[in-house]
């Protein structure tokens, strides 16, 4: 069933939507009280029934993840909300936290209750200082009204929420690197197993969930797991936020269910292409997933639908490119991102991203040779699947998929020494040297 109207973002455009007063007017915190009256096991069961899958990128079933937390350990347990939102093209959690922060707090308390945690940390990316201010002001109000803290609204449940601000590191969004960062270290991933559900923050059992995942939890208790499971296609249930940016007429965050197609997202929700130019390529799930061509427009924008189409839903960040886009330049732009953000722990990722960037720059300068295309694929092959975290697979996606779909553009660059696509008006003159 298609989502009839927005639920996560129902009120976001209304005045003071972020305040506790308005949230309570709209029936806020009732779902939390309902869930706190249930035993933790029951809460997890309800979330499992809803079919909620993690919205951070991997789409792992949330209820199952919560179930991995061992029950009989004396150590404290923690919830970490991943608000690092650094995947290029993603800005949905930004909107949720700015305009609907109490939904996140409410979901966090439910999650804490289900796993037996008394403390939740919201790890927010350093660039979201303005969001941190909103969260902390609203947290203070929720504490004052007894929706957080000791003995929440007389239920006997204790839960504290703290906001922890990062300082500019894409890798901090990887769950084990997030824990490292929260412990005051470099954001670098840990070897798994043990998984964070068993050995996480401070060596204690820890659940890490994306902001949007947690924000969905109160809806499951408010409207029932059956309602949640009925929204969208089977195994891809619930409301979903899509971030659409790039060359579209109306970029923004759109809420619908995962039975939506890429075509609907681009042409109905985002108003079609900007200035009437033709669609050339679409990255459906943040820069870490494969580029698709217009052939894939009728693919369902769900976890499973986009895998079938040869890409991934990831963080549902759709970046849309029109015909003026030079795809070799695009690969270089994103490879610069990965080269800059690689945490440096695993050699294939750290060295490989730099190699790929250098080879791409060589092609862009018109000095490439045809064997450089195979060289790029060979480097990619030595990165993919050979790193501690999914960063390695992410950084090769733009390169490998642009070669797959736009190999002729690479070849044209190499043969003619210049791009097949005339330099777009939105491009600069190229005077900035990115030789760093």
């Amino acid at each position, binding site marked *: 069933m298609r989502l009839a109207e927005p639920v996560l973002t129902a009120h976001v455009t209304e005045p003071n939507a972020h305040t506790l007063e308005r949230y309570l007017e709209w029936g806020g915190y009732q779902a939390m009280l309902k869930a706190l009256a249930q035993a933790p096991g029951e809460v997890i069961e309800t979330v499992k029934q809803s079919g909620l899958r993690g919205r951070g990128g991997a789409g792992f079933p949330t209820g199952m993840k919560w179930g991995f937390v061992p029950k009989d350990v004396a150590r404290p347990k923690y919830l970490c909300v991943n608000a690092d939102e650094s995947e290029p093209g993603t800005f949905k959690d930004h909107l949720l936290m700015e305009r609907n922060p109490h939904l996140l707090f409410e979901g966090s308390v439910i999650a804490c209750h289900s796993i037996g945690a008394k403390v939740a940390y919201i790890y927010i990316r350093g660039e979201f200082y303005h969001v941190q201010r909103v969260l902390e002001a609203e947290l203070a109000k929720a504490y004052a009204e007894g929706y957080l803290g000791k003995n929440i609204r007389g239920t006997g449940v204790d839960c504290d929420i703290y906001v922890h601000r990062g300082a500019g590191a894409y890798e901090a969004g990887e769950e084990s690197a997030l824990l490292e960062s929260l412990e005051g270290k470099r954001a670098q991933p840990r070897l798994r197993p043990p998984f964070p559900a068993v050995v996480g923050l401070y060596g204690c059992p820890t659940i890490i969930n994306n902001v949007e995942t947690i924000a969905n939890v109160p809806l499951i208790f408010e409207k029932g797991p059956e309602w949640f499971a009925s929204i969208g296609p089977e195994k891809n249930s619930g409301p979903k936020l899509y971030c659409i940016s790039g060359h579209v007429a109306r970029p923004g965050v759109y809420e619908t269910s995962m039975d939506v197609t890429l075509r609907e997202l681009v042409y109905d929700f985002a108003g079609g292409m900007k200035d009437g130019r033709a669609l050339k390529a679409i990255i459906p799930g943040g*820069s870490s997933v494969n580029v698709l061509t217009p052939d894939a427009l009728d693919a369902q924008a769900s976890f499973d639908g986009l895998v079938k189409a040869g890409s991934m839903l990831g963080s549902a960040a759709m970046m849309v490119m029109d015909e003026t886009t030079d795809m070799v330049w695009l690969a270089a732009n994103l490879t610069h991102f990965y080269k800059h953000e690689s945490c440096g722990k695993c050699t294939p990722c750290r*060295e490989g991203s730099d190699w790929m960037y250098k080879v791409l720059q060589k092609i862009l300068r018109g000095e490439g040779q045809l064997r450089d295309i195979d060289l790029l694929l060979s480097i990619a092959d030595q990165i993919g699947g050979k790193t501690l975290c999914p960063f390695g697979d992410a950084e090769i996606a733009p390169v490998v998929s642009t070669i797959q779909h736009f190999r002729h553009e690479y070849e044209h660059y190499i043969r003619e020494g210049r791009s097949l696509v005339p330099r777009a008006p939105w491009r*600069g003159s190229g005077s900035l040297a990115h030789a760093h």
Partner: protein
Amino acid sequence: MTFHPAMPYGTPDWHKSARKLADEGPPFEFTPENRRKLDEILTRYPADRRRSALLPALYLVQDQQGYVSGHAMTHVAEIIGCSRADVEDVVSYYVMFFTKPVGRHVLGVCRTLSCALNGAERLTEAIAGKLGIAPGETDPTGEFTLIEMECLGACDRAPVIMVNNEYWHECQGADDVDRLLETLRTRGVAGLTGCHHVKEK
């Protein structure tokens, strides 16, 4: 180090790694107010996990002196109870800590795909041209530092600029850079558009 057979090793700029030591800077101590703030922040983490307060402590340093100096790192290490090397390790990793004095306004222009598709490259070139500096540099008046940032997470209002790590400016066209710089000179960050998510529609 691993080797790829087809890579041009041996060229001068190929594989360089250098250790940059932090500037010691002037003597540093937290103001009583910042010290109080840090003590409050420390209560958010288990008593034996003081190192969790390292990033917040470094933000306080940056608030107080504009960048993080070597002396400040030593001071923070003493309060947190870790080594100076631990602090340096963290400072050198995260892009939002400056290890040198910066201009009064640090303009962080997003350069990643969605902003780039909407003219970020032209914007950075325009700012660099007006100020006569390259990204990473501060203009001679000490008013502006220009840096390029990776995706800031507001791609629907591209291109996005973050000023002084805290203030946002969205939809900045390259043709309108004069006005942006003039506004910042005269009115400071109050002249920025802010982040559209914050503003009520």
